[in-house]
């Protein structure tokens, strides 16, 4: 898992590395196919704008907003979603 989140050129990073309030655009979903499909059905498609609203008081999960909907997502999934701020 760690190997996929090491790059940080051109503002590319994992979703859970965003700071609270940061906006970005989804690049790719690196999860299991079934989980990727579900996340995409909920609106997390590559090319979609996404914003990290806040982290839960204990640091996990995170609250994101995408297509006008607020979702709670665990960091174990968020770290497999690549976004760009560039």
């Amino acid at each position, binding site marked *: 898992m760690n190997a996929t989140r090491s790059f940080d050129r051109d503002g590319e990073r994992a979703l859970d590395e965003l700071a609270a309030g940061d906006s970005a655009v989804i690049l790719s979903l690196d999860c*299991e*196919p*079934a*989980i*990727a*499909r*579900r*996340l*995409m*059905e*909920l*609106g997390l*498609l590559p090319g979609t704008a996404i914003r990290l*609203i*806040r982290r*839960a*008081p*204990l*640091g*996990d*999960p995170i*609250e994101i907003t995408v*297509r*006008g*909907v*607020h*979702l*709670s*997502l*665990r960091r174990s*999934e968020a770290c497999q979603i690549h976004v760009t701020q560039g």
Partner: protein
Amino acid sequence: MSRKAEPAARRIAILGNPNAGKSTLFNALTGLRQKVGNYPGVTVEKKIGMCDLPSGQRAEVIDLPGSYSLQPASPDEMIVRDVLLGLQEDTPPPDLIVFVVDATNLDRHLYLALQVIELGRPLLLALNMMDAAAAQGLRIDARALELQLGVPVVGISAAKGQGLDMLRALMDRDVEPSGRHFREWPLHLQRVLSRLEERLPSRAGLPDRARRDLAVALLLDHGEDEALARHVPPGALADAHMLARRLDEFSPGWRSGDVQGRYEAITVLLEAAVVTPGARRDTRREGIDRVLTHRVWGPVIFVVLMGAVFQSVFAWAQPVMNLIDFLVRWFGNIIGHAMPVGPLRSLIVDGVIAGVGTTLTFVPQIAILFTFLCILEDSGYMARAAFIMDRVMGQVGLSGRSFIPLLSSFACAIPGIMATRSIDNRRDRLTTIMIAPFMSCSARLPVYALLIGAFVPNRWVGFVTLPGITLFSMYFLGIVAAIVVAWVLKRSILAGGRPLYVMELPPYRMPAWRSVFSTVRERSLLFLRNAGTVILAISVVLWFLASYPKGSDAVRALEAQRQTAVLAGDATNVGEIDRRIAGAGLEHSYAGQVGRFIEPAIAPLGFDWRIGIGLVTSIAAREVMVSTMATVFNLDNAASDVQPLRQSLREATDSRTGKKAYTPLTGLSLMVFYVLACQCMSTLAVVRRETNSWRWPVFMLVMMNAMAWLASFAVYQGGRAMGFGS
């Protein structure tokens, strides 16, 4: 049901995403003419109501569970898929689908709408919350949407009752299916689907293309879908899995190609039909969230709110429960006086009426808890509570959704287990149900209080008292046991692929009081109807065990003494003899015999046959232990003062050895037993209801009682080995 001659009512299904306002619309259309039950084999609520259409025709309206996709991720979504694909035997596909979307959130809500439109069934789209959309400056061109989607579109506000006449008029008409498709499968996938399709039988009452939809469902299945496996010829599912694996290898991303296609279609659609006032921010929501999910204030508010809920279930339910108890006794007395003394009177008063009383006393707790839960859920706070607690519950492999059912179980496991329905992951829900009874419920408190008062010296240790530490340890032991069991279950029989914990955090809304009221009413009635009957049956069996056989020699000798005392006018003596008759009667009853019979099994735990009787009668409810022990020790079992009973326990002797029967170590061992043992028939009845099988309650009974025996054995024998046995 009474008017069989009429043509079958039009069957209309209400469908949509969670939080689209489906239930509000359902209530507005059907009023209180609703029937709530379960889909067979699962605990997904099935709500059906009647609605009058303008033509005078009646429609049967079914409120399908909220769903995000036709590729199901929860039991709720599976039901929706099964109904629409005609796989659900008790619920044939509807004649018309009313698809409800949140007009302020068309982008996401239209996804499932497109999926369902593609099924090619008669459908009309209801744009709900049009008032809120207008307030936000959204301008939606319903006519443009109609043209693009090929289905009738109507704007409504279910909460304010706006547009419902128009909707009813449309529900009366015959609606042509759209036949529109918003994405195409690539050619190689179409070939795969055709191959699968050929293996499926066509089903009556469904368009021929339903086979294609079923083939899609098969191909996208990831091996956990029991309903699918039941409905396809053997081998077809295995073939589908094999094809899917091959596609994964050669055509990565194939699983979500159609998702992308639909969202692209939605973007085009919304550009044509919706004018947005530009980026807007929901400042009210942001303000509330900033406080409720704040790093410090979030948890503080959560703890205070949960404390208040917990305290109310504890405190407010008690007077009502006492009142019910009083009324049941009063009613029992009236019946008792009206009937001749005999076995029938005893059966009705001590068996049936007492059993009904046991069932009814749970209703206040259920009603109060569900009133709070429903308000928390409908206002949107429940999702925030789960957001705050998710990390903590994640440690034992559960999610934030499990926290509140477990907390409720400290008051009573019955409403706690009923509250697990909000957990959409099946394995998490079963795990939560299985560990809920380890939380020390309010019925254990009288037992702890009796035993602590009898055996734990009231001494200060530092700045806490020994009884205080003991009581705290009992609660703590239950929590530790729950954590251990959850950990083991999630790694053994309830292990499974890593689930996706994603949860919508809905906007804050004012709860609709009518829906709160109807939820509370439904939950209470369901409990009475289903669990209540089991509880009543077991109560009658327990009554029989404690009352028969009659007329043992010991009782007859005492009755002769009583006769003499009555003739002598010695009232105090009569009372004393009456108590001894009750004690002797219980001792020689089947329950007493069971107590003696199980003595060899419980002797290693430090318990004798008298405690054995208490364990048997505890099946009715744990606190019954206290009154049973009072009867066994010839004390007045209705007395509120437990001091004499505490003294009797301390001074009880073993008739064979003449030594003290119980030591403080016995008391500790017995308390540990009460923490861990599954004794409560009502819990088992409700687990049976909520899991829809006897497998889980039987497993719970065996597991918990084995744990209780082993733990008490370890405490008693370990304590003796360390010299605490006297």
